[in-house]
């Protein structure tokens, strides 16, 4: 089983959370809010492209807005495979965190 990378996981989850409005800028904004880290646009596109290429995301054309210089938005949506991959990685996390003795990390 090939696991998602941390960046891919974050992006994928952001897409899921953003539901109908997942595109470059909104994803970046969400990541800033949740992790407190400012990602460059290219840093977002690289995993986005990879995920699309792997088939975990699909890209579709959205509306155009004036602040985009009249250009169309490209929105992202998670696929069944993408969901599966997220569930897989969650299972792995649960396995890893399981049976960690209480107070061990305090």
């Amino acid at each position, binding site marked *: 089983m090939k696991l998602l990378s941390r960046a891919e996981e974050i992006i994928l989850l952001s897409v899921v959370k953003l539901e109908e409005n997942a595109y470059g800028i909104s994803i970046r904004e969400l990541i800033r809010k949740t992790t407190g880290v400012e990602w460059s646009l*290219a840093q977002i596109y690289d995993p986005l492209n990879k995920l699309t290429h792997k088939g975990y995301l699909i890209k579709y054309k959205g509306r155009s807005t*004036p602040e985009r210089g009249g250009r169309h938005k490209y929105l992202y949506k998670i696929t069944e495979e993408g969901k599966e991959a997220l569930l897989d990685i969650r299972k792995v996390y649960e396995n890893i965190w399981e049976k960690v003795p209480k107070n061990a990390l305090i």
Partner: protein
Amino acid sequence: MSEPKRPPRLAEQLLRMILLKEELCEKLGDFEEGFQYELKTKRAHKACLWYWSQVLKAIPLSVKNLFYWSFSMLKNYFKIAFRHIKRHKAYSILNITGLALGMACCILILFWVQDELSTDKFHEKIDSLYVVRNIQHYGNETKEGMGSVPAFGPALKAEYPEIINTARFNNGQGEFLFTRGKTKFKELIQMADPEIFQIFTFPLIQGRIEDLFSGPNVMVLSESLADKYFGRGNPVGNIITVNEEYDFKVVGVMKDIPHNSTIRFNAWIPLEFANTVFRQDYTKTWYNLAFRTYAEVGPNFDLESFNKKILNRIRDSRPETNSEPFLYPFSQVYLQVWGRIVQIRIFTIIAFLILIIACINFMNLTTARSSQRSKEVGLRKVVGARRVQVTKQFFGESILFTFISLITALILVRILMPFFRTLTGKPLHFLSLINGPMIGGIFAVTALTGIIAGIYPALFLSSFRPAAVLKGKGISGKKGDLFRKILVVLQFSLSVILIIGTLVVFNQVKYIKNKDLGFDKEHLLYIRVEGNLRKSYASMKYELLQSPGINNVSLTTHSPTGIYNNGQDWDWEGREPNINPLVTYFGADPDFLETFQMEIAEGESFRKGTENSGSNVLINERFAEIMNLDNIIGARLSQEGLTLQVIGVVKDFHFTPLNREIGPLLLYHNPQMREYNYMFIRLKPGDIPEALAAIEKAAKKFNPGFPFEYRFLDQDYDRLYRSLEREMGIVRTFTILAILISCLGLFGLASFTAEQRTKEIGIRKVLGASISKIIFMLSKEYAKWVLIANVIAWPVAYYLMHRWLSDFPYRITLSWTIFFGTALLSVLIAQITVTFQALKAAHSDPIDSLRYE
């Protein structure tokens, strides 16, 4: 608010450049939206800064992506190339063989060149070593030589602080008998200053360097010689007797001198020894140019000003001298003074000619088969490949081919190494030749081949228009056809130049070897006059003459292949003051002319018996010509109180290799001067073994201490031309290879043309054309192009060979037969190559070729 703010133009342009076309809209939009968002919260210039930083941050990732994608394309290109090789095996083998042969030739020649260039470079101090050369003035003529007078070296060291050390060699090596117990052999001895072991890199593996300075009777042996006389024992401290007369103590053993050294010897004795044998002051005089002097100089040595300094010094102290010594870099001696740079250049040029021929092959075969790749190119372009990409693909393919060829070539070189060793007479070894610069050289050659061979096919194939190609129209072959023909012509021109070159060199060498030397060198053998024979040669001569197999016997001072005694300042009545020739001296007894079968042109020879006066001399025609007297017989020649009388003129004979002109010669016969070194014996053609047995018997009787050794003079003459013949052998071999490569290409091309014209041939056959007519039709075109190649090559070859020949004073004339012969030969070779394919095409059944129409 006024107009909405736009992101910085330049940054946007940059972004457009690094993004792929299909993602342009999305990414540009996102970037701009981000920019507008920033604008709302921050000031304009901050937002611009933000935009810029975002764009710049995107660059590394896009570069990474670019590599990723080009790599996957590369994988695809290689896959296609390998499939292509597999599918067209015959074509691929032809192509790779041609290239591999060309590269193998090139690598072998590079090995040879590297070895030549490495000559003398093994000396650690090579860059600070100089040799003393001199310019000699003989009347109007000047001569440059490597000789220097004995006293020059020590004076140089004593007077000039910039000279650290000097060492002198006695010119020439003498062959002497070595005795150690029962082991007796003749060996060559080099007399030289012990300093040679300090300034040159001749490392001692046994003995101490101080001991070499301990007196005149010490000796250093090479490793192999020490092995010969002492086996595994330690030679140091032991005695070797030379010529049964002088004892030498072995004080050291040196490593064998490597083959790429201009200074070679197996046994060394000090120069001082000459003082005890020849004359007390032999190594101290300011005359006699019998030495070679080497100097080691200190740092910051300025050659030009130093040479001026010594010239002025010489002019001040000895204004009458005709000799101007100067220092010359030792590292340049082999290349410049020995003139090897010429051969090195010629060979390098040949190597690259062969490589070009091989590249042309590749170009021809690749473009000829372009129709088979046209669909692929069309499809690639339709799917979105740009021309650059297709070009890259075919470039990559040609580089792949070159590297496969390189591996094949290296295997070939490895296999051919033993032959190459015999061919060149150099102890070259594959692994020892592979070093840093060589690997660099090989890769440079490979890359160059890949680029030269690939550039045209890549540009040609990538130019196809997809629409035309995919419709099945094929490509308009006209342009490619013409270019291919030009390439074939070029290729054959190069081959023709090589063939003509080989033929001219071959004829010249044959001419030199067979040229009438002015005497009969067959059935003439000689033995050295040494040991007891020095006293008893007259009796031995008498006894030999009784033997039925022997015609004549003569005693001489030198062998005709090695006369090195000469002098000048001869005066005669009516001499022009600016004429002062360098005259070679040759001493012989009165039987000389009959033994050598030379002829007298004028006057008479020495009289047999004792009534000869020592002042009677013979001169050769050349000398007579220089003296330019009406009455040459009876003319007097004088030099420093010595007066000689010319009694006859001998017809010119060659006493130097034929790449030098015959010079003035003085033949003397002086019964008082018993310095004969050689006994020449003319055998009756017939029973030579019997005569040899008689000579051996006599030699054992009169000179029991020395082993019997003899040599035939014609072998000595052959040896003079050995290096010339060797080079001829190399040139010939590579010419044959070049022709072979050209033929491979022609073969491939012919098969391709025949294939293309299958239908035409089928129709012609159906209409009643005979097989011979079809063969003629297919092959006449190539004959035409090969003939054109000849015509182009002739003037070039004529010019080059004319220049080459002009170095020989005795040379063949460039006759038309060579050129026409070459034309005939090349057409013949081309025809044989083409006819094979033509036959196959002509015999094919028209039903097969026409069925699908």
